[in-house]
């Protein structure tokens, strides 16, 4: 065990996850260190969300080890919140789940996430962008060591996405928390990342955005040898083709 791994907030070692006879992750290693921004990219069905949920402890791997630093606080921002209309929920009440924050913390967290004090509004009345920031504000309330975001900009346009990632970066700079996120916005998100991991059931490659972007294998990394990053990007934002995979 290397010293670096021992100091990591979260360390996954040779993780294998299978669901319904299909192997989703095979032999994945991942270590997140304090204060770094790590972005996972990969095609649909490559196991990105499964990897995040393994970090959260929501997926039990078939093999391998998940180690969390003692007392690790995780702030989780899900891709979307399926809000059942039968469940009445104001923004302020949502902020107090599952732990009631100290007085005054909610408006501060909302402001930090870029929202006015909308604690009295029903959660269901928020726009997609406001909802994303409200989810971020709730995650910040636990004063997390690690922010985990699952495709936080799904549903936002490109300027909105870029602004969101800049906000994540400045949050990291101000708070010193680590960030682990999944993204489809390859170009936009790579600029805000310290490390990019390309996943396709296994770790295809990883490194700084620059090293990944300038590597000769760049196209192969993101397109599995058939499609380049740009093509993948266009695919996500343009026509929909069925490639026989599903979003993991």
């Amino acid at each position: 065990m290397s010293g670096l791994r021992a100091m990591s907030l979260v360390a996954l070692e040779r993780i294998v996850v299978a669901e319904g006879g299909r192997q989703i992750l095979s032999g994945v290693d991942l270590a997140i260190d304090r204060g770094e921004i790590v972005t996972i990219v990969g095609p649909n069905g490559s196991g990105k969300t499964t990897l995040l949920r393994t970090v959260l402890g929501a997926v039990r791997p078939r093999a391998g080890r998940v180690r969390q630093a003692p007392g690790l606080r995780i702030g989780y921002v899900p891709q979307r919140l399926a809000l059942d209309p039968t469940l009445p929920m104001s923004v302020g009440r949502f902020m107090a789940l599952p732990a009631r924050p100290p007085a005054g913390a909610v408006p501060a967290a909302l402001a930090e996430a870029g929202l006015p004090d909308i604690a009295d509004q029903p959660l269901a009345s928020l726009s997609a962008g406001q909802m994303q920031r409200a989810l971020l504000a709730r995650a910040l309330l636990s004063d997390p060591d690690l922010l985990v975001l699952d495709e936080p900009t799904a549903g936002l346009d490109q300027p909105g996405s870029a602004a969101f990632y800049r906000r994540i970066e400045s949050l990291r700079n101000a708070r010193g928390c680590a960030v682990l996120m999944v993204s489809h916005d390859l170009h936009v998100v790579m600029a805000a990342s310290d490390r990019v991991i390309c996943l396709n059931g296994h770790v295809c490659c990883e490194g700084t955005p620059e090293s990944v972007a300038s590597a000769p294998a760049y196209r192969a990394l993101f397109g599995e040898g058939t499609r380049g990053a740009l093509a993948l990007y266009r695919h996500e934002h343009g026509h929909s083709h069925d490639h026989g995979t599903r979003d993991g």
Partner: protein
Amino acid sequence: MDDALIRALLAGTGLVLATAPLGCFVIWRRMAFFGDATAHAALLGVALALALSLPVGLGVLAVALVFALLLFRLTRGGEAPDTVLGVLSHGALALGLMAVALLPDAQVDLEALLFGDILDVGPRDVALVWAGSAGVLAVALWRWQGLVTASLNPDLARAAGLRPERDDAVLTLLLALTVALSLKLVGALLISALLILPAAAARAFARSPEAMAVLAAAAGAVSVAAGLALSVALGTPAGPSIIAAAAVLYALGRVVAR
């Protein structure tokens, strides 16, 4: 008012303490079939207890617990399989009815089993319902934050270090206990109605989960009182009268909230 009516009113309002918060979770988590199936299985418990000469309440509680845990295991980690639950729910009802009919000496009042007999509760039943409901309410309040968080998104609870599977199991046990408490009062067919209708009536007026649970309790208590009054005035069975009152309350709420 005569004593039976007062006891019925006391038992009904006591039961509402448990059914109001649990009914909210049944609605939020779309567990209506789950409640139905557990309630129907309680009939098997009656038959089993009588066949073995055990206390009926014990048999009902044991079978409701076992059946609820079976259902819990079956539905865990995926969308609720409606068809499977439907088969189990009605299968349990049919088997329970057959088992009761097979008992010697026809010692069972089938109508009371299906629709309850709240006007026939004794002082001990009232005390039991209040104690049981208070217990259910206390546990629900204890696990409240985690249960509400997991109702919204289980991964939010997991990321916060909670264990939603354990809370789900607790909720399942509370539902089984509530079914056992309710059987004598409103009967196997109307238990899930008593869970769902007051909570549904409360939804339009609630702006937080807690407000919905409190309003559901109020709606439940009003339904019990109005239903008993209806039952006395019209000579109709008490259980169905209570549920009918709750349905009217729900409809009125929809109109007023508009």
